Structure formats: C-alpha cells, structure tokens
C-alpha cells in the first residue's frame, strides 16, 4: 500500500482516460470536447512517464514529448477551424454540424 509501483500509475492513467472518454461522449460543445481530448493525451503521458521510470528507459519520456507537441499543434489547428465555424454559423455545437441528413 505504501510502496508506489507501476500498477498505481497505470490505474491512475486508466481512471483519467475514462474521465476523458466520458467527457468526449457527453459533451456537445466543441470547445469542451477539445478539453476532453487534452485529458486523454495527459492520461497517456502519465502512463508513458511511469513506464519510463520503472524500466529505466528514456523512450517513454521521448514519446511523451512528441505527444505534447502533437497536442499543441492539434489545438492550434482545431481552434482556428472552430473560430472560422463560429464566424460563419454563430455556434459551436456539434448538432449544428450535421449537413448530411440521413
């Protein structure tokens, strides 16, 4: 109990990942969907860093860096698209984006 091992970190990573998935499934607002994706990426980062530490290998930290870079660029492009959409339609709800009605 008092000794923190790899499993503790993996369980924490799972919990945070589940929270992020719940956010993705229940949010309608696209901005808050982006928040949920950030939570997912951070949960994975914790897993990478923990494995990197407990196996004495730096590869996990490297991948965490690349995940952070991808998160930053995804955010820049996503927010740009969101601003264009908001200028055009005045709303960022997911339901308004169904242009193909089946």
């Amino acid at each position, binding site marked *: 109990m008092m000794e923190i091992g790899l499993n503790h970190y993996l369980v924490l990573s799972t*919990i945070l990942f589940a929270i992020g998935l719940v*956010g993705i*499934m229940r949010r*309608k607002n696209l901005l808050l969907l982006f*928040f949920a994706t950030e939570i997912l990426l951070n949960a994975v980062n914790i897993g990478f860093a923990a494995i990197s530490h407990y196996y004495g*290998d730096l590869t996990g930290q490297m991948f965490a860096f690349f995940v952070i870079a991808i998160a930053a*660029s995804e955010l*820049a492009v996503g927010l740009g698209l969101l*601003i*264009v959409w908001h200028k055009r339609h005045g709303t960022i709800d997911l339901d308004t984006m169904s242009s193909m009605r089946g």
Partner: protein
Amino acid sequence: MFEAIAFYLFAFLTISMFYITVTTSQALYALTALAAGMIFISAFFFILGADFLGAVQIIVYTGAVMALYAFGMMFFDTTRDVKEKQGNKFIIVGLSTVAAVLVVMIFAAPILSDNITAFYPTIEGAGNTQEVGMVLFTKYLIPFEVAAVMLLVAMISGIVLAGKKMDLSITLMSNAEIRDMKKDQNKKVLS
C-alpha cells in the same frame, strides 16, 4: 512514505479537477479546472524523476495551451450554460471505463510480461535534462525535426484560419462599410 503521500494527494487532486472539467456546465470553470489539473499532472512527472518533462508540461500546457484556449474563448459566447447530450449515463460511463481499461491493457500487457529490455537505458551520473538531450538529439533526431515541421504547419494554419479580416477594425469603420463587409462575409468565409 513521502512518495506515497504525494502520489495519493496529487491523484485525488487531478481526478477531481478533471471530473470538474468534464461535468461542469460553465466553460470558464472547465478551463480553470483543466489548467489546475495540468499543473497537478506535472507533479507526477517530478515524482517519477522526469524533471524536464514536468517543466515542459507546465510551460506548454499552462503557458501556451491555456492562453490559446483563453484567447479562443473570447471569440465564442461562453457565458451561457453548455447544453449536454441527453443519453443514458450508465452506458456512457460503462463504455468509457471498458475502453480505457482496454487501452491501458494494450499498452501495459507486453511491458508487464517482463520480456522487455531498455532500448536507451538511463545514464549514470547525468541529470534528467542531460539524458533527454543525449537521447533526443541522437536516436530521436528525425522525429524531433518532423515534430518541428509539424508545429510550423500548425502555426501557419492557425494564422491562416483565425487571422482572416484581422487587418480590419470594426470600431474604425463606418456603418456602411461594416454592412458591406457582412454581406461579403456571408459569401466568402471558407471559400
């Protein structure tokens, strides 16, 4: 002992912050809770000895990402309550938990089966930042350069997408000009 206390404290704080982020109906609360959660996550990196990663986490997430979100939120109407999807809560939570467990299993099963050896073992007598530099600029040089190009592409696309009509100022224009611009905009945005 200290490690255990720190781990449980920050695990509780992180989970509660992210819980607020996904459940609150105010976009501003979600933003602030997300920023706090990001800082608490960097604490795990410091506990795990990944000092450079922790510093990058604080700088990139709470410095750059949160500032970008804050500026982005100025464009949107964030004062009203956010509407939620009306769905079965148990199905959502159950599906999420199953999916998260599966993803972590996919990652952890080959590692926990104990037939893994360290590709780039940590170097004795070097600080974490030094180790990261050594590995990043020898073994991971090409991914590093590709990530740099990707960030450049993202920057250019962000400027192109968000920077339309930023050379115009509505306060300095006459009403007729604004009306013309609005008429134009309906035709031209996204073209």
